[in-house]
């Protein structure tokens, strides 16, 4: 156990150093970033408290307040499952310091335990905030005894274990399936996409017309049936049932031990297969395709993108969802999909909001410089200007954003938008499409991380990715705010287009001047 803790300790510090990599920024700027992280945590906690109080008040009115902790527990578990599924390849398998770790005199199961604990730590912060919020709200609304706080405190530490194990098992199976096939990474990405989509559309089968309290109770019952540990947890914390708490703890810990032991047995075999790939029989030189330097860089960048499942899954999901929505649109009623949202926005406002949101999550350039890592010397030594390199990275992002233009046209036709509405949506999409890649690149050049050992850290947890994604989503919120503020879709949309074009001019100027200097100094 001592060795596991020591390994986890070293890996967490390495990960934190990577995550909080702020380059050579001045202390004042670094403090601003740390303050931003604290602010983000407070906002997330506050939002969760608000929702917990909103749902809890209704549940209390219907004498069903005991459902609240298990609802939030299920929410935390699903989030852990989702995010871990993305991280299995890169954290448990195919991670860069594999050779170093395996050369140490530590058993495989202990190394597996340390890697899973790393996933645990990554998830724990979110679980802690979520369960902290529900504990506070439930404490106010239900006034439970001391045992609730005690059991809930213990449960918070145990709660991420089973979802992490389930995600790891699924991730391991997907890795096993994909490595035997030619385009293993693409197949792995598609499989994870499909799994996440199944998870996402499962709740739609629940009847949304029921009252919230009834729906919540029904959902809690369903969760308890699908995931019995939720029932045990609920009984333990809301009824103070010691036996349920003991079983909940025992199952979580035993499953963890069993999983680390089991994976320990195939750890080396699986990692060897994941990392070495396949050897082709004696290669014979064939026809070579010639491209221009920009096209060569573009192709290289595209291949790099699809070689990283975590990169694709985190930056391609929005566009995949948009495409699915576009294809399914003739067969679904948009007003059903909007649900209660239609009270706040019209269809013509909802469509660009959804498209812009999907685009905001499709920012590949936020990590494209960092992803070069130790390969950066190649880009820096080839006879190509920094601007051409930037262009290749932006072009890849634009290619991935291009379905949004197609989607906006098709959705407009299906929903019978007027010519002016269609034109406005297209203008919004094109303007935002030019903004997202350039902005991501400027941010990545300002907060590069070239010393990473795990792609997940660069794609999901780096300063550049957090700033880029939240800023782009923030701009979508600004679009919504402008429509509401002006009380007119057309005025709001035109103001937003003007704002984006001003930002585009500034960003492209910064990129071609300061950005080039930053790249040279990397």
């Amino acid at each position: 156990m001592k060795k596991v803790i020591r390994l986890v300790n070293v890996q967490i510090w390495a990960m934190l150093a990577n995550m909080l990599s702020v380059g050579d920024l001045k202390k004042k700027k670094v403090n601003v970033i740390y303050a931003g992280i604290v602010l983000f945590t407070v906002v997330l906690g506050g939002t969760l408290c608000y929702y917990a109080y909103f749902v809890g008040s209704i549940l209390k009115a219907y004498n069903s307040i005991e459902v609240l902790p298990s609802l939030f527990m299920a929410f935390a578990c699903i989030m852990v499952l989702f995010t871990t599924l993305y991280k299995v390849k890169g954290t448990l398998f195919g991670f860069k310091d594999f050779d170093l770790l395996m050369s140490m005199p530590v058993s495989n199961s202990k190394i597996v335990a340390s890697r899973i604990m790393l996933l645990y730590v990554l998830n724990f912060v979110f679980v802690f905030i979520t369960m902290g919020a529900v504990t506070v709200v439930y404490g106010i609304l239900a006034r439970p005894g001391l045992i609730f706080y005690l059991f809930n405190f213990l449960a918070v530490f145990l709660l991420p274990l089973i979802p992490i194990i389930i995600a790891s098992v699924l991730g391991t199976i997907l890795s096993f399936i994909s490595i035997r096939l030619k385009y293993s990474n693409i197949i792995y990405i598609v499989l994870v996409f499909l799994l996440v989509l199944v998870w996402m559309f499962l709740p739609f089968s629940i009847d949304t017309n029921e009252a919230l309290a009834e729906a919540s109770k029904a959902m809690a019952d369903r969760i308890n049936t699908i995931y019995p540990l939720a029932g045990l947890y609920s009984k333990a914390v809301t009824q103070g049932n010691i036996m349920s708490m003991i079983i909940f703890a025992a199952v979580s810990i035993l499953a963890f031990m069993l999983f680390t032991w089991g994976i320990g047995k195939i750890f080396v075999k699986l990692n060897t297969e994941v990392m070495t790939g396949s050897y082709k029989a004696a290669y014979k030189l064939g026809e070579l395709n010639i491209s221009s330097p920009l096209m060569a860089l573009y192709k290289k960048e595209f291949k790099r993108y699809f070689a990283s499942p975590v990169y694709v899954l985190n930056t391609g999901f929005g566009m995949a969802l948009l495409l699915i929505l576009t294809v399914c649109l003739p067969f679904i009623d948009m007003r059903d999909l909007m649900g209660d949202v239609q009270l706040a926005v019209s269809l013509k406002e909802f469509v660009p909001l959804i498209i812009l949101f999907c685009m905001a999550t499709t920012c590949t350039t936020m990590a494209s410089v960092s992803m070069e890592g130790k390969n950066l010397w190649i880009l820096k030594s080839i006879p190509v200007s920094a601007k051409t390199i930037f262009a290749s990275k932006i072009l890849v992002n634009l290619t991935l954003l291009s379905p949004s233009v197609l989607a906006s046209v098709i959705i407009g036709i299906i929903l019978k938008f007027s010519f002016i509405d269609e034109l406005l949506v297209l203008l919004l999409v094109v303007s935002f499409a030019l903004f997202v890649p350039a902005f991501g690149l400027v941010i990545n050049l300002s907060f590069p991380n070239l010393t990473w050992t795990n792609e997940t850290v660069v794609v999901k947890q780096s300063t550049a990715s957090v700033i880029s994604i939240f800023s782009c989503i923030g701009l979508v919120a600004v679009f919504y705010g402008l429509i509401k503020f002006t009380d007119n879709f057309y005025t709001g949309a035109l103001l937003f287009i003007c704002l984006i074009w001003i930002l585009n001019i500034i960003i492209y100027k910064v990129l071609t001047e300061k950005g080039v200097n930053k790249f040279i100094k990397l």
Partner: protein
Amino acid sequence: MLQIVNFSKTYKGGKRAVDGLSLEVNSGDIFGFIGHNGAGKTTTIRAIAGVLNFEEGDILIDGVSIKRDPVYCKKVTAYIPDNPDLYEHLSGIAYLNFIGDIYEVEKSDRRHLIEKYADAFELTSNLGDSISSYSHGMKQKLAIISALIHSPKLLVLDEPFVGLDPKAAHTLKGIMAQMCKNGSAIFFSTHVLEVAEKLCNRIGIIKNGKLVAYGPTQEVTGDSSLEDVFMELVETKQP
């Protein structure tokens, strides 16, 4: 072909890695750059290759300052670092073709040159495999082939013989000699003094960022071996 004029590099924190270095490498020269660990060899080589930014002094390749026209300088130069980290998601042939595209190597020449150098380094049969499956030596060979296929005027290598098997090392030496006969210049760092002594017509010895010996190999070594000269220079305390 290569002129280094009063080049200095100070890293953040104040460490002066290279201090006022000036030297010249002409067409046809094989220049050996020798020094102990941390002497400033890699810093100098990275600056020549355009990988490292610097403020003090200048580096001219084919008469052009790398600060003024880095793209031209890089076009006529090939650089191989001491530990070549290549694009592991590409196959060997995809990487070579990528380099061919970047340096705009003609289609007819490209195929011929890849075949010639891949055969010479016995890597042809592995070119279809992913670089991630390559050993250190195979990556080193691939990096060397990628440097040679665009026929550079200046070849800059950092410890090129580390990781190569004896046959590949012998092949590389032969290619280096042939390139110099054809008018290219080679600048490389090494710790293997015997290789430097036999292969280089000119050498430079760097100590704590300063050039302490420089000139034709015969003149620098005199009647002693390069190893004796190097040890004497390295062990002498600087004023």
